[in-house]
């Protein structure tokens, strides 16, 4: 009989090996899925994973991967603090939307003010602040009224979606847009645009911020008191209390931090790749970032790699939809398999398989 046995120590090898195994399993299962759909599985996998990076049209796809990965990594790094501490912000999507509204709102309010070094930093501050405040709603409700932050933050996503729709046809509508919904396009507003730092790479200010966030988070987790407190609170809440970690303060800091970073991601998106406040602006980055955070094992470096991989499955998936005529649901299923496989193999970090009957010691 096969059974699971808890390891005395978490396995170092498996904590690195499990995500790789998950990716391999996903590819195998995905090939099965594509074969059932009547497509050549090898070509499908090659279209998703290989062509966007090394294929004939890679120069077109690569910047798209970077643009997709930047907000995912930025949001996921922010979420990883809360997730490690056992504080579950499921509403990063809402904070992302509010960050975009606030950041773009500042620029649109002063249009056509053109001193970039004043305006762009102000937008960044407004974006972060917007996300932070939106996240404070579940944080304060949890601290003062013991509400569940999972439900509150999730429900606020729907509020944010309604808000952005209202703003796109109301307050922030482009006055020169012939009555069409949507704000002015910030990409065409030089003082506010978040363009590529090196033209044609997709590496915009948001990507730079994401890389910076990865480095800072890595230092925090390995060398700093705050990262230590976060890990301690997540693993043993009582021990954290004994060590002097204030649980309520931690809730506010972790939710605020992840909200601010999601808000930043929203600002960089609305001022860059998206350009507009529009009802269709929400693109589920905030939810996908949850997958990215776990795929990266809540480790900043892992999140960077996972964000790039996830972005690749999006871009490659779109390519596969277009070139192989795969239904978009198949691509979503494929992405779901990735998270599912990761959770399944994750067990191996703390457990090992044993053959034989269980016994009580």
């Amino acid at each position, binding site marked *: 009989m096969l059974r699971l046995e808890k390891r005395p*120590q978490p396995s170092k090898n498996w904590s690195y090996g499990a995500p790789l195994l998950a990716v391999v399993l996903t590819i195998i299962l995905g090939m099965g899925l594509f074969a059932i759909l009547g497509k050549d599985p090898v070509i499908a996998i090659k279209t998703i994973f290989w062509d966007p990076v090394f294929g004939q049209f890679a120069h077109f796809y690569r910047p798209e991967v970077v643009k997709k990965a930047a907000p995912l990594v930025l949001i996921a790094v922010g979420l990883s603090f809360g997730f490690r501490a056992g504080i579950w912000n499921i509403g990063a999507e809402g904070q992302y939307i509010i960050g975009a509204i606030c950041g773009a709102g500042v620029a649109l309010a002063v249009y056509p003010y053109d001193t970039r070094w004043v305006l762009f930093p102000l937008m960044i501050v407004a974006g972060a602040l917007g996300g932070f405040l939106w996240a404070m709603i579940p944080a304060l409700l949890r601290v003062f009224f013991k509400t569940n932050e999972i439900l509150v933050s999730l429900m606020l996503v729907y509020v944010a979606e309604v808000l952005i729709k209202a703003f796109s046809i109301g307050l922030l509508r482009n006055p020169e847009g012939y009555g069409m919904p949507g704000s002015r396009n910030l990409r065409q507003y030089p003082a506010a645009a978040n363009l590529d730092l090196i033209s044609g790479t997709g590496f915009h200010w948001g990507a730079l911020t994401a890389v910076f966030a990865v480095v800072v988070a890595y230092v925090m987790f390995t*060398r700093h*008191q705050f990262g230590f407190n976060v890990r301690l609170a997540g*693993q*043993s809440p009582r*021990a954290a209390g*004994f060590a002097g970690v204030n649980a309520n303060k931690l809730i506010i800091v972790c939710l605020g931090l992840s909200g601010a970073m999601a808000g930043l991601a929203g600002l960089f998106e609305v001022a860059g790749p998206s350009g507009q406040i529009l009802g269709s602006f929400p693109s589920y980055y905030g939810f996908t970032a949850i997958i990215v955070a776990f795929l990266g094992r809540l480790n900043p470096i892992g999140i960077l790699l996972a964000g790039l991989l996830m972005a690749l499955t999006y871009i490659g998936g779109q390519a596969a939809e277009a070139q192989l005529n795969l239904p978009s649901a198949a691509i979503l299923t494929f992405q779901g398999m990735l998270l599912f496989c990761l959770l399944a193999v994750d067990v191996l970090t703390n457990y090992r398989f044993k053959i034989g009957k269980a016994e009580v010691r």
Partner: protein
Amino acid sequence: MTLLDLQGLTKAYPGVVANSDISFAIGKGQIHALLGENGAGKSTLVKTIYGLVRPDAGTMTLEGAPFTPTDPRAARAAGIAMVFQHFSLFDALTVAENIALGMENPPKQRELAQRIREVSENYGLPLSPDRIVGDLSAGERQRVEIIRCLLQDPKLLIMDEPTSVLTPQEVEILFGTLRLLASEGTSILYISHKLEEIRALCEHATVLRLGKVVGTCDPRETTSRDMAELMVGTTLMTPKRDGEALGDDVLVIEGLTAPAPHQFGTALKNVCVSVKSGEVLGIGGVAGNGQDELVAALSGEMPVDAAMVALDGQAIGDLDPNTRRKIGLCAAPEERNGHAAAPDMTLTENALMTAKTRLGLSKNGFLDWPSARDFALSVIEGFDVRTPGPETAARALSGGNLQKFVIGREILQKPRVLVVNQPTWGVDASAAAAIRQALLDLAGEGSAVVVISQDLDEILEIADRFAALNEGTLSPAVPTAGLTMERIGLMLGGAHDMEAAHVEA
């Protein structure tokens, strides 16, 4: 006449032989003690009898017939019952509901309640079937477990460390019940390391050490010291202290009052006591009478009014744990796993957890890992913690080793005041002696030490003064010199107003 005969029982686990060729017999109506330190193999042996563990070799014979229980249900069906050290009861349910949950075919509630009343009357175990378990004292909870066993009419009743949660008076009631059961022909296998109790209760003792039977004796005719040395295998050192000079009051607790932190917690009521430099104050009491709350109020996990706790004249009652550590108050709570230490973290990380403030392991928020590692190593070496190294996860350590680490971590910070709760719980005798000696040495260097313990022998051994904690109220502290067990028992609240109903034995 023999009830259960064990022949050559052997059970090996990877890396350790838990039981090696164990043979002895339990007679009908006999109260048989099983003695040994932690890790001597007592648990494995009784789990074998109770069907939880299958032996590698050896045979068991119950009333002349081969006995090979495959699971606890089979063992119960054969007439074996067991009261575990840790109760498995649901706080929110009544006594009768809890008992019904453990039965194969529970009768109707009214019938069951009637039977519970009969058994509790017959055996002097007063207990109402309608009470909610969350409201019961530890002694009463144990009665629930015992009655649950007695309803099966067992031939052999196994009791695992039954008195660790009882006051001396409650122990007397329990012993009365056990003697009555034995006189009716029920055999009792009594597991303990409290030698005085075994001398008072048991007719026969089997001593285990490192998985082997190292001796048998009649406890009534053997001294405690002889049995202890048989158990440990060496001559025991008695902790002793040098320098009797007491200084000024260091820790002063004045009118400490706090509401219960959760539903089944205990409120602290006007606790007043002071501890001098160089003094060890022992606080006794049955678990659940406010020990956890008192430690939390002193460590800073549960802040109270500033003036309620003072250290060297400074009011600290409202400060957080790390500020208190900085001023000089360190603590070690009872629960090692998940409270005093984080099980999934390494020993280095666990060392840093409480020592960062006093040892300056955190500069501008950045952690000094090399120094933390050095500190963890010094704890490991100074307190003989058996582990591959400071990068081992705390959960990989045995309870005793982790306890040595936790106590050592606090002592090596040289606190002005050290508060420890159950410092030697689940620790083997030689390690316990080492921990007690370390506490005395700390006091000898001029610190004030507060030892909260349910082990009264421990308190009498190391404390200068004794105070009893009972339902959140602390008695005045009295010198331990010349204190008798009877006096202590009365200070602990006697048998919680639950005198034996009809003890006839």
